[in-house]
């Protein structure tokens, strides 16, 4: 009886060992899965021009869309774009609704606890934009002023962290509302990226870029653990940089070209 029990226990232990060995050998199939499916599903916010927007025919357009097209072309798969509101970006990725995020996705250490980033695809400069006649040189000059910012963006995080006490931060739901608040004088200044600032100065010369607050790298978001996919994306970003297509996309949509992109 005891002998039988011993054999049984031994076989249980052996099976358990085999299982763990099997698990350890399991490869990361994140990239293979997409290639086999023949379709790359990318989450992009289409209400964030010039990153994600719609063209005159209401087709997806913008820098993020251009990047998604280049990447799916190089991967040799079809592209499916899933429009998303900015609050749904990370849940969409972590719950597996989309494969990757190319969604004006600013790199932060906090977000990196939940998702992985590829090398950056664009480095934005976050700046203060205000009426031309107003005098602002540093964050201290914003005390007592109403500063507009779009909610749950890296601009929001930045001003929330760095604002000097006494600054009145007003948050808006999207960039259009934030810009409109500046145009109509509801706020004295806004926090904005370079591309949006360029777009505004094309529209009117009543507003100036006052000062830059911080560099903000943007990257592609990948689920934790999907290293093969991330490595492939990094390789492709390098190739797109070498061919000049990445810079061309930056030039076309953002109006500025980064001299170099940080890699990590």
């Amino acid at each position, binding site marked *: 009886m005891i002998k039988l029990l011993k054999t049984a226990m031994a076989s249980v232990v052996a099976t358990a060992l085999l299982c763990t060995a099997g698990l350890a050998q399991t490869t990361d199939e994140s990239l293979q899965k997409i290639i086999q499916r023949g379709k790359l599903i990318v989450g992009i916010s289409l209400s964030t021009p010039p990153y994600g927007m*719609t063209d005159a025919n209401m087709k997806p357009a913008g820098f993020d869309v251009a990047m998604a097209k280049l990447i799916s072309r190089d991967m040799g798969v079809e592209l499916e774009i899933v429009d998303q*509101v900015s609050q749904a970006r990370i849940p969409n990725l972590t719950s597996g609704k989309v494969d990757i995020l190319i969604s004006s996705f600013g790199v932060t250490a906090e977000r990196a606890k939940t998702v992985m980033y590829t090398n950056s695809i664009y480095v934005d400069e976050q700046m203060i934009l205000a009426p031309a006649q107003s005098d602002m040189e540093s964050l201290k000059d914003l005390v007592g002023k109403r500063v507009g910012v779009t909610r749950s963006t890296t601009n929001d995080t930045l001003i929330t962290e760095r604002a000097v006490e006494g600054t009145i931060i007003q948050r808006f739901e999207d960039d259009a509302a934030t810009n409109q608040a500046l145009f109509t004088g509801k706020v004295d200044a806004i926090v904005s990226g370079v591309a949006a600032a360029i777009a505004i100065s094309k529209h009117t010369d009543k507003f100036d870029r006052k000062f830059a607050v911080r560099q903000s790298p943007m990257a592609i978001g990948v689920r934790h653990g999907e290293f093969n996919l991330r490595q492939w994306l990094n390789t492709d970003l390098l190739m797109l940089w070498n061919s000049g297509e990445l810079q061309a996309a930056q030039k076309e949509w953002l109006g500025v070209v980064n001299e170099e992109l940080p890699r990590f």
Partner: protein
Amino acid sequence: MMFQDFTMAHVYYMLNGLLWTIGLALIALTGGSIAGSVLALMAVSRNKLARRIAKLYIFVVQGTPLLVTLFIAYFGANYVGVDVPPLVAISIAFSFYAAAFLGEIWRGSINSVPMGQSEGSHALGLSRVDSMRFIIIPQAVKIATPPTVGFFVMLIKNTSLASVVSITELTRTSQIVSNATFKPLQVYLLAALFYFLVCFPLTIVSRRLEKRLHKS
């Protein structure tokens, strides 16, 4: 590159969003009405357990925001390994939500029919089911019409939350168009007009219905 003019292409795009909004509203109204009537009947039944369950359900669902229910239905299921398509998540979340409110409105209406009515029908020898069907519910419908339509209108406007689960309905198309054209005032006024055109006829129908029920 940026600041497109606000053109007919944008208006068509928003109309397409309006179709989604109407579709979502129909799903929510149908699902909510079916589940809501079951809930209302449970709430007025003589079975203590059924009453308790209905009460607890209404208590919990009325106390949680629709956005949270939607998030759980759409993203939550994925964490336990089930992929729920957006439309299914919406149908479930909106039906659950609408059922709680409609159930409570209809329970209230049934209860507000004077006691004498059910006592009278009992005295006439009608069974409980027959008395419900021929005496109580027809009178309850009259009382329930205005608050029900009011809730329907609210539900139609609540479908704007569907943008969280990547459905491009009217509010989301308005956001996209407003951000592409930087003309939020015109765009959102148009969106408001579209919502009004959907909700207003409902209010008119409700008035007519009320008048007709009053006569009979």
